[in-house]
């Protein structure tokens, strides 16, 4: 059976590796002052993904970045909604890293390959259900 701890560690290191590759590309392009038409950040999905990852991993270093992070947190839309998460916390960092990895691994290839949105939604739903079942199985001890 697979070792859950090694899988989690592998995914985290893989996420850092992917972030390093994207950083190398974006920083090299910006250092060489190329035209805006050829910049990788022109793609909105990569711009949002990289921007969220970079902000989450580098925030709290100065007041301006903390302000940027606070401004990105939208207010609650529902009256009476109980918001138990802090505006700036480790949970937000982990959540943005997970959503960033989701964008890079699943959403971006689907967009690039031109998958039908209905098919993409179905695949995403199946993946999330399998993930929930897997977490339940780990909790019950069926998978170690």
């Amino acid at each position, binding site marked *: 059976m697979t070792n859950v701890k*090694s899988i989690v560690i592998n995914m985290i290191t893989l996420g850092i590796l992917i972030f390093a590759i994207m950083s190398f590309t974006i920083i090299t392009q910006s250092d060489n002052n190329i035209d805006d038409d050829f910049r*990788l950040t022109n793609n909105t999905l*990569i711009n949002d993904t990289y921007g969220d990852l970079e902000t989450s991993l580098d925030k709290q270093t100065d007041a301006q970045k903390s302000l940027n992070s606070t401004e990105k947190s939208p207010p609650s839309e529902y009256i009476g909604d109980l918001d138990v998460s802090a505006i700036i916390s480790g949970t937000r960092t982990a959540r943005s890293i997970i959503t960033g990895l989701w964008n890079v691994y699943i959403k971006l290839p689907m967009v690039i390959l031109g998958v039908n949105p209905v098919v993409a939604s179905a695949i995403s739903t199946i993946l999330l259900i399998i993930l929930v079942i897997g977490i339940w199985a780990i909790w019950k001890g069926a998978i170690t």
Partner: protein
Amino acid sequence: MVTYPDLSSLSNDSSIAGLLQVPSANYVYFWVWILAGIWTIIVSTIYFSERSKIGTGKILSAMAVASMVIIMLSVIGSILGIITVDIMVRILVLSCVIIGIWWISVK
């Protein structure tokens, strides 16, 4: 009398970057095919040399190494203006997928 166009009529840039941009002016995938060929050559070289030395070759690690090389070449290509953003995103995504599969399968 026939007048032949010089480089200035084909590209605004008369440097090496302008020379490299000439093939991709009408067909943007020209340098993409070159990169695909370089990727195939690197994968074949690594795989078959490993197989001749050790006896077994690992195709996935060869593909991952070649993908890293292609990422660097595509970054240089985007700086020179011969690879557009759309193509760069596709190369980056496919290379990251291959590197990710290799990373997960090795550990």
